[in-house]
């Protein structure tokens, strides 16, 4: 077990890769009452097509999320209740990039940690329980669909991507959920839940050496054959968007719009994606927040309200920039984007201010045990080091930020309008 120390955050932690291939990271958080452990696989909603050992697989959209639901049941036992009996809260989530299972507990970590490893590495499901789960998942999807902002975002993905699975909701849709079978779930589990493909992150005040022993002993009792890693197959994706304009209606008080810039993800690795994402985020922060004198003018003239902003998401699989606002003027948002970027309101002073803000956010993110554990794990699964992000932020130059404006010329653009029901 290797002991590590991060000097910026003054954090002590340990890491080890077990014989099974499971990577374990253990943070010693001395003053905390509770402990959190999270185990994750880089198997998210984007892994609809994948290859392992030379065999290609295509699965129903939403299957990673379905699998997450079903992992909580085994031999008619309810995992959640087993955790509850020992006073531990267990939960899970599926995102586009990963599936994560985690618990928090105030007692000795041994029991819940063993239970977490046992249920994640023992998938046992019946046809009946798969069928039963479909109703629950479809209600979950309906719930997200009633949220206008969530729906606007999902429609934006659909308008951008022809083939790339970001076009599907994380949970799929009613048809794909109904099409998922027990056999398909087992196949997905076998491909994606091998320990060599997974990471366990633990934050606890308990003795790190004893905690690592618990993990070692538990995993030593399980048998895992050596396996290769699954590889995501990204279908060829045209550079052009699907819809240059798409309109849909909901029962909302005001019309909303997203302008989406679809880009080709030409990043060598996750670090470069993070670097370029941060540089562009800084530029947009300088141009589309009160840093820009035009911002107050836009507010005063009613061109924007508090529902105005942007989002940059650069990964090695996809890259996009979104701007959103709330107005009846369909042309207004594009004019604001042009006006804001034309001003190019960035200099060394503003850059230093923005950098300081993001350094502060880095420190804030480390205080909540559960949130920190999950953030660290997510970053790791996505090829990033949580601690390194702050160093990358510090290293960004004004030249990088200015250069990031090139996204405008490189992108294919889609305009998505959510209109009030008449």
């Amino acid at each position, binding site marked *: 077990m290797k002991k590590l120390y991060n000097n910026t955050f003054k954090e002590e932690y340990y890491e080890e890769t077990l014989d099974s291939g499971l990577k374990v990271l253990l943070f010693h958080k001395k*003053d905390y009452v509770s402990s959190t452990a999270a185990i994750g696989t880089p198997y998210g909603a984007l892994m609809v097509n994948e290859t392992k050992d030379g065999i290609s697989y295509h699965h129903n959209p939403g299957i990673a999320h379905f699998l997450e639901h079903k992992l909580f049941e085994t031999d008619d036992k309810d995992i959640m209740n087993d955790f509850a009996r020992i006073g531990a809260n267990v939960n899970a989530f599926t995102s586009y990039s990963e599936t994560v299972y985690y618990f928090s507990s105030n007692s000795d970590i041994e029991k819940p940690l063993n239970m977490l490893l046992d249920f994640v590495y023992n998938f046992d499901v019946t046809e009946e329980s798969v069928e039963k789960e479909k109703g629950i998942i479809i209600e979950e999807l309906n719930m997200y669909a009633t949220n206008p902002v969530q729906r606007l975002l999902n429609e934006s993905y659909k308008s951008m991507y022809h083939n790339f699975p970001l076009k599907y909701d994380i949970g799929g849709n009613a048809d794909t959920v109904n099409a998922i079978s027990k056999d398909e779930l087992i196949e997905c589990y076998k491909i994606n839940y091998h320990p060599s493909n997974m990471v366990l992150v633990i934050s606890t005040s308990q003795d790190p050496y004893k905690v690592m022993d618990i993990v070692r002993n538990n995993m030593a009792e399980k048998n895992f054959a050596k396996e290769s890693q699954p590889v995501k197959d990204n279908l060829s994706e045209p550079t052009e968007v699907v819809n240059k304009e798409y309109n849909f209606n909901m029962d*909302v*008080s005001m019309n909303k719009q997203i302008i989406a810039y679809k880009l080709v993800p030409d990043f060598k690795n996750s670090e470069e994606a993070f670097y370029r994402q941060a540089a562009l985020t800084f530029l947009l922060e300088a141009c589309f927040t009160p840093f820009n004198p035009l*911002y107050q003018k836009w507010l005063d003239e009613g061109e924007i*309200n508090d529902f105005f902003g942007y989002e940059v998401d650069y990964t090695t699989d996809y890259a996009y920039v979104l701007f959103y606002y709330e107005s009846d003027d369909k042309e207004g948002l594009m004019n604001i984007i042009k006006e804001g970027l034309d001003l190019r309101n960035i200099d060394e002073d503003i850059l230093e201010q923005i950098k300081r803000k993001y350094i502060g956010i880095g420190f*804030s993110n480390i*205080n909540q045990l559960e949130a920190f554990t999950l953030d660290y794990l997510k970053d790791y699964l996505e090829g990033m080091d949580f601690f390194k992000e702050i160093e990358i932020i510090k290293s960004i130059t004004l030249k990088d930020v200015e250069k990031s404006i090139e996204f405008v010329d490189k992108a294919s653009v889609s305009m998505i309008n959510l209109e009030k029901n008449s």
Partner: protein
Amino acid sequence: MKYIDYTKEELKKNIDLKVVKTTKYKDINIYFSFMYETDVKGKACLSLIKEIVGNASEGLPTKREMMAKKCMLYGASLDAALTTFSYHNCLSFHYNFVDPKYLDGVTLKDYFDFITDTLFRPLIDKESFKENQKILKNAISRRLDKPAIYAHNRFNQILSSQDERFRMLDADIISELDEITLDDVLKTYSDMIAKSYIEIVLIGDVQDELIENIRALPLNERDSCFIDRDEVKLKNVNYIEESKKTAQTALIMAYKLNGHNIFEGNNYYSILLGNAVLGMLPCSLLFIEVREKRSLCYTIDSRDNKKDGMISVSTLISYKNKDRVIKEIRKQLFRLSLGLYSKDIFNMSKRLLVDSLIQSIDDSDGTYNYLHSRGYYSSESFNDMIDGIEKLTKKDISRLFKGYRHIITYVLKGDEETI
């Protein structure tokens, strides 16, 4: 083990300072809570103050200057929240700063100057009033676009016809926002600073310098009482169904526990645990019976309104399943009241409730929430509260829930063809 170690000091009459000194966080959290009684108009004013404070101040008169300052203080944040407690309102401001020992170029004094400027010298003028009036109306309308929130607003509006104290939600404020003036807001702000009960909570590796600065704030003693323990009186409304063009149906059922003073004996703990057994947790009766066994919903939960002795159950469902879900909810509440559920469920709920309470104090907001709510219901310590819950039996829960009475079933019917 003592879970929360803190000091409490009365700075002036009705101004309390609570300090939790801990090295576990890398930030310093400072909470100012202002509590006093207002009507709906006053609440609308407070809602605007919540938006305005932190946008601009005498020292930082533009949004740009304010933003630059927050950035220079390493992402210093100021979040405001308004909660209602019967007629009483609590407007709280939460300042979050990175502990300066981890950084270069900032000091505690910089943080304190930022607090005094933003909180005690906010720029409330004609422009900020108009701008935030508009922003707030938009934000409320946007919230009400979500069917679950819209349903809760309608539910409270219906109950407010019987008791004004329910008239405190978004939909009511929107209409009041057009009526209030800049003078109303200025007067409310001035009353808030001069007359309300103030609670200041400091959490982190708090240095004496900061405590001294807080003690020296120019705040006068005040005559303020913020606890209203009159029980709400509600008649049975029975069943109300409305509709909205949306993909799901929202269902809310509310019940009143009769004949018990919630502040007597262990009633407060019993409603907490009873609610946990009914529908707050993944091992709760509603979760097991409605979601897991019958697949009728994804989310279903019950909430306790401790002060008013009320329990409400909310869920999002398909309209075609409405009658089955209503029947199940009734059945589970009936089981709860008679103790017709396993000891295993009772023990699991108790363990999870106790553990989630203990876990909540592992972050600054959770610690603040506990310290803040303590004065309302109980003067007991956190450890006493945990002991109180641990000692409860199934009989305690049945005794409290036995006299429950149905108040209202509210259905916001969705149009399942919408998507």
